[in-house]
């Protein structure tokens, strides 16, 4: 399906670290991704934001390279060292030019094996995180999403913003970060993936060399109770802005849910297709001109726990009520009647094409290797993907919609200058 990709190599170290590498000839760049099962899922309400703070500290220096020394080493290699955290994982990535691949792998090994914990680094990382939290307050989309997750997930750990709150982050100390790292920055459950113009077997050998001495006890990972369905709750947040931002939806499915392929197709039919060819795009934007942005997401957050299904749009305050009505009508319609055969065919084709396009990026391919390992998709997932989509029927998509898109069971958050419910 894609001639530009080549050999795949894999190994699992005795410590539990899974290693995957794929060659992409002529790429010129490479991407290495270390995925640790250390996301905000393992925070507590009192220590919300801890996973994020621990991750931020990973790029502040190592035992043998102070912060600026590490930065200089990475930059001099012509590489970028980034860290990101979401609900499930902390991911450390290195992207660079292919000719310095070995040096970059050495840096990544050092970052993981020899983390440094110093008060001044903690304060800098905390400052940045607090600034992000403040910035989130200025972004209506993020404000809506955080409030939405809180409404939808109740007491489930996913209700918390990944970066925590000002109060919780202000109360975190070095001991908290150290304990979190000791517990969750361990090779068991971690995945190391590399893609680029490299020899996969050499990468595996290099990874064994750099990460062979990295050890740690597998942590206990209690599975949170399944989240309850939202059930019609809504929240209005006053913000003196020109547009009103609307987010509605509910709990979705886990990645292992047999309904997942149907949910992916449902998402494309509803609001996540090329241009504005989805039902919401055609109706809300192209048909009535109510919004510049209208989109849905029912698949991207599906993970070890159920993800979320949301529909988002932003419109003039006077048109927010109408926009909500249109969205609800479309949600109900898809739950009541299956999509047409033509819609189904278009959605399948779109998803297959999207997978091809995303496969142009070493970074995305490395992330794909990680997901295949983390969610036990199998290393032949790419070759099975078309058959998987072909097996989804119209009725199965309707079943997914009936289960996930019932507006009566959805939560709704509105951020803007006035509430659409005052006169609605």
């Amino acid at each position, binding site marked *: *399906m*894609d*001639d*530009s990709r080549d050999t795949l190599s894999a190994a699992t170290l005795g410590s539990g670290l899974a290693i995957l590498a794929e060659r992409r000839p*002529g790429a*010129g*760049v490479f991407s290495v991704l270390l995925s640790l099962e250390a996301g905000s899922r393992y925070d507590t309400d009192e220590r919300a934001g801890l996973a994020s703070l621990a991750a931020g500290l990973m790029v502040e220096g190592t035992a043998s390279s102070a*912060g*600026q020394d590490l*930065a*200089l080493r990475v*930059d*001099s290699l*012509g590489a*970028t060292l980034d860290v990101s955290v979401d609900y499930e994982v902390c991911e450390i990535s290195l*992207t*660079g*030019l292919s000719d310095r691949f070995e040096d970059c792998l050495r840096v990544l090994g050092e970052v993981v094996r020899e983390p440094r914990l110093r008060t001044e680094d903690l304060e*800098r990382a905390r*400052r*940045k995180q607090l*600034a992000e*939290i*403040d*910035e989130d*307050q*200025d972004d*209506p989309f993020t404000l809506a999403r955080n409030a939405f997750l809180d409404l939808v997930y109740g007491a489930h750990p996913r209700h918390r913003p990944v970066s925590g709150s000002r109060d919780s982050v202000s109360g975190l100390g070095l001991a908290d970060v150290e304990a979190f790292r000791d517990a969750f920055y361990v090779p068991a459950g971690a995945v190391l993936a590399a893609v680029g113009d490299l020899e996969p077997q050499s990468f595996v050998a290099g990874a064994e060399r750099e990460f062979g001495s990295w050890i740690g006890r597998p942590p206990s990972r209690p599975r949170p109770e399944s989240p309850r369905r939202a059930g019609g709750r809504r929240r209005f947040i006053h913000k*003196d*802005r*020109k*547009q009103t931002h609307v987010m509605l939806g509910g709990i979705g499915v886990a990645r292992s849910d047999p309904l997942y392929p149907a949910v992916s197709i449902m998402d*494309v039919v509803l609001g996540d*297709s*090329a*241009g*504005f*060819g989805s039902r919401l*795009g055609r109706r809300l*934007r*192209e*048909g*009535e*001109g*109510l*919004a*510049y942005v209208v989109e849905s997401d029912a698949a991207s957050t599906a993970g070890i726990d159920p993800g979320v299904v949301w529909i988002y749009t*932003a419109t*003039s305050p006077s048109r927010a009520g109408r926009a909500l009505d249109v969205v609800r009508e479309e949600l109900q319609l898809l739950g009541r009647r299956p999509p047409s055969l033509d819609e189904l065919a278009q*959605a399948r*084709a*779109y998803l*297959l*094409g*999207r997978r091809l*396009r995303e*496969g*142009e*990026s*070493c970074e995305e391919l490395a992330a794909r290797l990680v997901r295949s390992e983390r969610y036990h998709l199998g290393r032949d997932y790419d070759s099975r993907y078309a058959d998987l989509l072909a097996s989804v029927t119209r009725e199965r998509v309707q079943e997914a919609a009936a289960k996930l898109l019932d507006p009566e069971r959805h939560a709704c958050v509105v951020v803007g200058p006035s509430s659409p419910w005052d006169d609605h």
Partner: protein
Amino acid sequence: MTVVSRSDPYSTTLDCGLRVVCARRPGAPVVAVVMLYGAGSVRDPSGLSGLAHLTEHMMFRGTTRFADGAIDELTNRLGGANNAMTTNDYTAYYFVFPVESWTVGVEIEIDRMSNCLLDAVAFETERSIAVEERQMLDDEPEAILEEALEKAAYGSHPYGLPIVGLMEDLERATRDDLRRFYETWYAPSNAVLSVAGDVQPDRVLELAGSACASAAPASSRSMPDVSGKAPGRAAPTNVRLSRDSGIARLLVGFRCPEALHEDSPAMELVAAVLGSGRSSRLYRRLVAGTPDVNDVSVDRMLQLYPGLFTVSADLSVGGDLSACEDAIMGELVELAAAGPSVEEVAKAKRLWLMERSLGLESALGLAGHLAFWKFVGGLPAGDEHARRVLAATPDDVARVTGVYLSPESRNSVWMTPETP
């Protein structure tokens, strides 16, 4: 260190004036098709800002061959993606299709070059959508800062007006205005077609040739002369805004040389020395070195006319914007006076090269890159730009910093948090 190049792209100009570029990537799974028109917001008529952008929207609303909605539907059906962007200088449209379907992208582009319906109802709907986009930008702090800076830096030149348009201009525009804009600027002689992927140039030329068959000869087209539109220098200003926000923001801008200017390559390295990576001068000085600055970034615009070189910073509440701007100026003065070290320039080149390589990783990135250089001055100009970036010396970096980034020539915008 060399510029990564998998193979030399094919390039030609057809009789009708359409410039065509084709870059082969054997084995690549997708093909990107980019059609770029010299029809950016710089071409907006006086009092009709946003018209180029509105025209971009209308290009998806149906042609004599593809009904309204059919372009998106066909894109989905064939597993593709599409979108468009309007910049100051140009408007570019793209499709990315699996390799077996790419010709459809060229067919759509050729068709909508001259056969758009520009339907009245669709026009009103798109105006309404553009109004929403205008309001969206009015709510975004970064967009507010950028628009304020561009207005200060360019004054009455079209670069000083928002690409999306002013609200009063959006409300004023008529379908006839849009039709005139479309008929004036959407022509083969004002366009570049760029295709990248596992394709044969002959096939691209065969398809592109149909654009010439239906087009008026390039010589008979009358396009307004815009050669006098290069912006003059604006007086230094400091614009102060406020917002109910938890952070303070700063944006400083300088006029930097246009894409084809001989100093343009060295400016790329100035940007990298100042702002690429955590070891860059501004990151070290402001983020690692002070308690108030949380983020700093540097950007430069490659354009037909002099673009902006910008430095932006985010500060905590109570952070001193004046001190931050002084510190930025201090670094610029120091860089101009003492110059960077050899190691610093070597590092900057590697970071620039990596950013460039990542930009060219996808077929779309490659097709867009080639279309841009073909548009501003030809593919050799793009190669020459890259060669000169990698050949620049510390002295070059110091010199252009002094010429273009002097404190006296800056415009800045501050956004302070409102006190409740």
